[in-house]
């Protein structure tokens, strides 16, 4: 060890495979030391649970009694369960609408905020629009449940002033889906909004000036300049939005408990209910595995499509 650390420099070409250069071992050790906590943490708290969850999907286990190997039974039960089927359909439907609305709202607001206005006002808007993201989803949902209460909620009260009859926001399938979507998008668009702000700000002004000289203004500039130039940002934003939306839990859990019926039940709610309410950890893991595969599939498709639609300059 001491020999390698104090070895003299050689005139020959260094061979990175065999030679240890003076001073190189220490940075390598340092790098290893610095990376170790993260790598160990990820391994222990991410990788091991993922593997355990996949393994558990082939067992019947209720915490109390010993796990019992059941092969593909959990997946077969999952396929035949109307609740699981509905929850996945709900999740997919939710993701499709929530992500589109979230991206559209965030992009629109980012463009508006980046348009000509005093700096203090821009800062105000940026902070205000980002603010919902830092709130607890459960607290927000609890307050929203009061606001959208059919009998005593403020929303129906205001609609009443306009002569509109009480709406069963949380007690009808459509109403509950709309409220969950609204609450989710309101709380989550802030991050996408910031991404778009960054993307738009990175577009050189000269590009717009040149476009203006060529006669492209307004909508044409947006469609043919802004959108292609922020398409990498759009890809990142949509990938993150889809992955997040596929994992929706807090809002429907607090607002509707998945109801009425199964109208707002989502895949992650089924995982939670199966595992921690019904002690069916094998079934819950099977749902988790399917959801993970779904997320991976959707992300792979997105990256595949990005080759055609994303412009990297």
């Amino acid at each position, binding site marked *: 060890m001491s020999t390698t650390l104090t070895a003299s420099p050689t005139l020959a070409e260094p061979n990175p495979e065999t030679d240890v250069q003076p001073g190189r071992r220490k940075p390598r050790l340092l790098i290893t030391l610095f990376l170790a906590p993260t790598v160990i943490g990820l391994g222990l708290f991410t990788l091991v649970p993922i593997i355990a969850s996949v393994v558990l999907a082939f067992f019947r286990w209720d*915490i109390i009694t010993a796990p019992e190997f059941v092969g593909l039974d959990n997946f077969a039960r999952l396929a035949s369960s109307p609740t699981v089927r509905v929850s996945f359909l709900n999740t997919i439907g939710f993701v499709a609408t929530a992500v589109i609305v979230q991206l559209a709202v965030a992009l629109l607001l980012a463009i508006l905020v980046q348009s000509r206005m005093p700096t203090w006002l821009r800062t105000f808007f940026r902070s205000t629009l980002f603010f919902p993201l830092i709130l607890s989803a459960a607290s927000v949902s609890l307050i929203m449940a009061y606001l959208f209460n059919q009998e005593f909620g403020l929303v129906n009260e205001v609609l009443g002033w306009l002569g509109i009859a009480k709406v069963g926001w949380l007690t009808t399938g459509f109403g509950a889906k709309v409220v969950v979507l609204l609450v989710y998008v309101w709380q989550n668009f802030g991050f996408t909004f910031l991404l778009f702000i960054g993307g738009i700000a990175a577009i050189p002004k000269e590009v717009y000036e040149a476009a203006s000289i060529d006669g492209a203004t307004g909508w044409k500039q947006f469609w043919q300049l802004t959108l292609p130039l922020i398409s990498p940002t759009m890809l990142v934003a949509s990938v993150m939005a889809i992955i997040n939306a596929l994992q929706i839990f807090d809002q429907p859990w607090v607002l509707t408990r998945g109801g009425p019926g199964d109208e707002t*039940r989502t895949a992650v709610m089924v995982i939670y209910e199966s595992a*921690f309410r019904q002690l069916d950890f094998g079934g819950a893991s099977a749902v988790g595995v399917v959801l993970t595969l779904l997320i991976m599939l959707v992300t792979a498709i997105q990256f595949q499509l990005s080759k055609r639609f994303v412009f990297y300059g």
Partner: protein
Amino acid sequence: MVDLSRRAVVALLGAGLAGTAISWPRLTGRDIPGRGDDALTVALFGTQQDAVARQALVDGFQRKHPDVAVRIVPIQGQDWGEYFAKILTMIAAGTPPDVVTVATEGTQLFASRLAHPIDEYVQRDAAEMQEYFDDVHPALIESFMYKGSLFQMPDNFNAANVFYNTGALERSGMERPRDDWSVDDFFALSRAMKSGSEGRFLPYFWTNRLWGGVVPWLYINNTSFLTEEKASGGDWFWSRFYPDQEPRGGGFLWEHADALNDRTVESFAVLQRMVAEGLAANPAQGGGNELVALFSSGQVGMTPAGGFWVQGLSEAGVANDDYDVIFFPKMASQRHQFGAGGYAIMETSKRKDEAWEWLKYCVSYEGMSIAHTKPDSSIPRRSLNTELYGAGLGPAHWEVFYDTLDKFPDTAPIPAPPQQAAVESALTKNVVGAITNGPGGVRRGLEIMQRDLEIALGGR
């Protein structure tokens, strides 16, 4: 790149080792309550404040058993389901408590898998225990029997009665209903309350859950959403402690779905009419957090509640004469619903004898007097219940709380088989669909409920 000397690397490693040593209890989980601790661990559903409030109980226990250390572990949750999930997590983590508070919702789950029957202890200390059983209605004991064995002794209970706002009753121009009022009377009163009130007002507010949801309306029609049978056994208990009464069997069995029973359909049709007419809330699933505010501000005329609500209403500034309590109305019967709570000994406990002493102390007159100083739950001991609710805080007809058991002795616990969580989910998620899609939607909704209940009961 920073160039670290050998000495610095050694120092860093040393610091790392020292940090690891200092945080060893955390890393190994030895600081988890109950682990590596030489004490009787009692898990209860509540907050740290609740645990502190039990200190007097612990002190009283330790006066009798100075050699037994007791650790109270409060477990918070939104409902009993969450509490049970956390208890199970403690078991999975290798730190099961010795004693747990369990409500009716979890009695059969614990009895079937986790709890230790207390038959031998009750029989051993029969002479001492007789005084307790003499003071407690047998229906409450029966709710803690499972397949012929006793698993808990009730420490608190709450029957679902109807609390009404006296201002709303006055504005309706009607008198307090008779004890044996009918569902038609209920509708008449609701309509009168509605027409006598202004602004946002709902005659009947209810929450979609096992206790106080649709179940009271099923029980008063002598039906349920599950079949109800009695397990065999239990004679050893009834013949010894309640010799003058008809034996009640070995506990309830709820093994099959029964949502399409004609009487069940009829009860749901009643609720459907109530909601359609705007007399009752379309219940959201989950808790009823807003209820105290709505009831106390006079926006709600009637709601299902029990003795537990007296303290809460008082703290919300509701005066005794602002509200009162009455039995649920009558249909085919006037059977009521109740939920009870008590301590259970865990099968895994190595301190079962000490745990039994804790159970015994908690249901003793002294223990219950210490544990229940406020009217925040009806008390199984008739004598103490009378003392607590008769002391002045609460509605004029507070006797209703215990009379529910005495006047309707077939009053029964929440139907909660070992698969309670799945069953509750199958019930609550289909209630709204069954009552909000017109009269024709009732049977359709119940057919889906029947299917979901069959799946839930078919599970493990």
